[in-house]
């Protein structure tokens, strides 16, 4: 395709990407560098059903004047990034100086909201991603050998977890694992422990979320691998059989190398998705035991007071996190690409 044709071909999607992805990103980055104006406060007499009281209120008029002059607020540089709600550099430095042991330092670190969220996010990402790939491949291999009549229904059932909306899926499971729910009660029976609750301890909550994550994402890997399996060269497989390769060896030396590009593709997508884990935390009401970067952003934007600047800073940090996470895979892909070009 000529460059000119190509340009006109992708112009609409390029424009949409600029408008709906790039510009909002710039806006978020700019907001993260600002904080709100100093509030003009005054003491007023307020009355209501429970009597009168002298209380501090915001002088809305004076604040509006300030805001009209500079709608973005005060420029704060990178200070929001380094405050306690984000990278907490001062707190981390202090914890390092006063550490009694590495464990003590990590405990102090885990007490800070961003690091607590990063802790869960990373564990979730690095446990769920490989297990999704392994499980997805296993399902694909299994379905590939099912008799043709049963293939359709099997594929449909295997895809169900992905079809169910994450929030609904996690809510249903949340009710099932409740101490009164069918799974919760059964577990109490099997472990003979009437106090057992999957929602109560951090360890069990993490396990629940991770199992949910694998359950939800495995169908995606399955579909991709299943499509890939249809393209495996039967000549190579036959050759391997003639050479005396058993089923495991065929899988290890023929099928998996053939599917390698798909493994990289799924890893990329899953790393990105899992790093932004969010819905299961809301669905499972797990915020007491597990938070993620996305959940912190959500939390900043809820309730009586919305903290846009703080949320913007966390968003930028999330983007940086995703970039760092994907770097090894991207570099590898780039090398492969260059290798092929030569």
């Amino acid at each position, binding site marked *: 395709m000529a460059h000119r044709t190509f340009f006109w071909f992708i112009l609409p999607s390029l424009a949409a990407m600029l408008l709906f992805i790039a510009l909002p990103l710039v806006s978020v980055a700019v907001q993260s560098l600002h904080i709100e104006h100093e509030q003009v406060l005054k003491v007023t007499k307020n009355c209501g059903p429970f009597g009168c009281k002298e*209380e*501090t209120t915001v002088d*809305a008029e004076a604040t509006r004047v300030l805001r009209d002059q500079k709608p973005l607020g005060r420029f704060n540089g990178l200070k929001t990034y380094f405050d306690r709600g984000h990278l907490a550099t001062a707190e981390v430095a202090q914890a390092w100086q006063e550490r009694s042991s590495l464990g003590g330092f990590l405990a102090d670190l885990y007490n800070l909201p961003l690091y607590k969220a990063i802790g869960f996010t990373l564990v979730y990402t690095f446990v769920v991603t490989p297990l999704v790939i392994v499980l997805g491949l296993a399902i694909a291999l299994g379905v590939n050998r099912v008799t043709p009549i049963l293939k359709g229904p099997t594929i449909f059932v295997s895809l169900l977890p992905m079809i169910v909306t994450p929030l609904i899926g996690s809510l249903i499971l949340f009710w099932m694992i409740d101490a009164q729910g069918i799974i919760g009660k059964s577990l109490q029976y099997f472990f003979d422990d009437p106090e057992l609750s999957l929602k109560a301890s951090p360890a069990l909550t993490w396990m629940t979320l991770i199992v949910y994550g694998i359950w939800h994402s495995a169908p995606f890997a399955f579909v991709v691998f299943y499509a890939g399996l249809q393209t495996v060269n039967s000549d190579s497989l036959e050759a391997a059989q003639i050479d005396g390769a058993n089923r495991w060896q065929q899988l290890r030396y023929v099928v998996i190398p053939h599917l390698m590009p798909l493994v990289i593709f799924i890893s990329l997508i899953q790393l990105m998705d899992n790093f932004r884990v969010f819905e299961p935390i809301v669905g499972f009401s797990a915020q007491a035991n597990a938070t993620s970067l996305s959940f912190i952003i959500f939390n900043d*934007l809820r*309730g009586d007071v919305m*903290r846009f600047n703080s949320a913007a800073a966390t968003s930028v940090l999330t983007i940086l996190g995703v970039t760092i996470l994907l770097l090894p895979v991207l570099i590898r892909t780039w090398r492969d690409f260059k290798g092929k070009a030569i």
Partner: protein
Amino acid sequence: MFLKKLAVAGAVTVLSGTTALAGCGLSAGNVNILGNDFAAIQAVVAGASECAGDGVTVSANLTTEHRDLQVAALTANPAQYSSAIVANSSIVPLLNDGLIRSLDDLVAKHGEGLQPSQLITIDGKVMAVAFMANAQHLFYRSDVLAAAGVQPPKSYEDVLAAAAKIKSAGLMDHPVIMNTKTGWNLGEEFVNMYMGTGAPFFKAGTAEVAINNDHGVAALNMLKSLTEYSNPDYLTYDSNATAAVWEAGQAALGIMWGSRGGPILDDEGSTEAVTGSTVLTGAPTLMGDNVASTLWWDGFTISANVSDADAEATFVALVNGISDDVVRANNDAAVWLSAVYEPSAASAGVSATAMSGANPYPMLPYMGLLHGALGAEITEFLQGSETAEQALADVEAAYTAAAKEKGFLK
């Protein structure tokens, strides 16, 4: 045939005529209400909807997520909603940004039926009209308490003692229930408990937080002691969950919202054994005579960014929504701030809490930030992984970072 048509036309005219009269005498205007979703507010909106017709439209969005929508929706010009139904915490962000209008002229023109105590005045201007009161207070099961041989508790020490007896008597493993879901609910429990210590949240006249003291530790320790008698899932319990557990008969000592009283006592969702023995009473005290609860009102505001005609129509419709007829028809749905309201078993708890000298929830512009910090940071103490002092220090640090960003602290 012609006569029949005429008669029908006449009837329609008469009907629409009466609607226009009973329907508030409005000729035009768009009324659009944003509010929380529970029985009393549904009744108010239904009452306001009677004014629809003859060029007046009334619509509403009632959702438990209303607090997340209201600032953005009312900042737009024209505003998305002509009225936001608020409580004493959720009015603050609207006041901070100047998004609601003074109601002085509308009260003078259309508010003859309102009582002075219903008018929320800020700096001498009426900014909201309150229609109901609410508070978290004690619910107890008289049958379970009798079986355990304990008197109804007056203080939180009594609650703990009663819970211990119920548990040791083998009546219930988890007799205590509270709205302790991490986040806003848990923050509210601490605020209530801290109120019971009588100490202020902030250094006088400043936005500097002052809860890391003996009072804060006492409040936290009491919360933790109570959660030890709660179901292990307590950190996921919001108001809906606690009401369901109560109706299932699995708790005997509850700290829940008064507005849940009506739905719990009615004949739906529970058994006679539970509803017949559920008693609503005042909130317990913590230190001395200090009631560990906060008083709340719910009321309506009118957006600043709507036309005067829409504002007037909204005010008239909502005054109609809290009319004597609505209050009489929904007497048990809330503790109405109305002359015709008749106290009932469902309102006994809120009334007793208000009478015993509880304070209203602080309407300070930075209170929401502290509430948010509390909800996020005290979980680890309740789970036993950090000390009370550390939890309070974390709350103060989280609040301070947020207050700096919002411009309340330097």
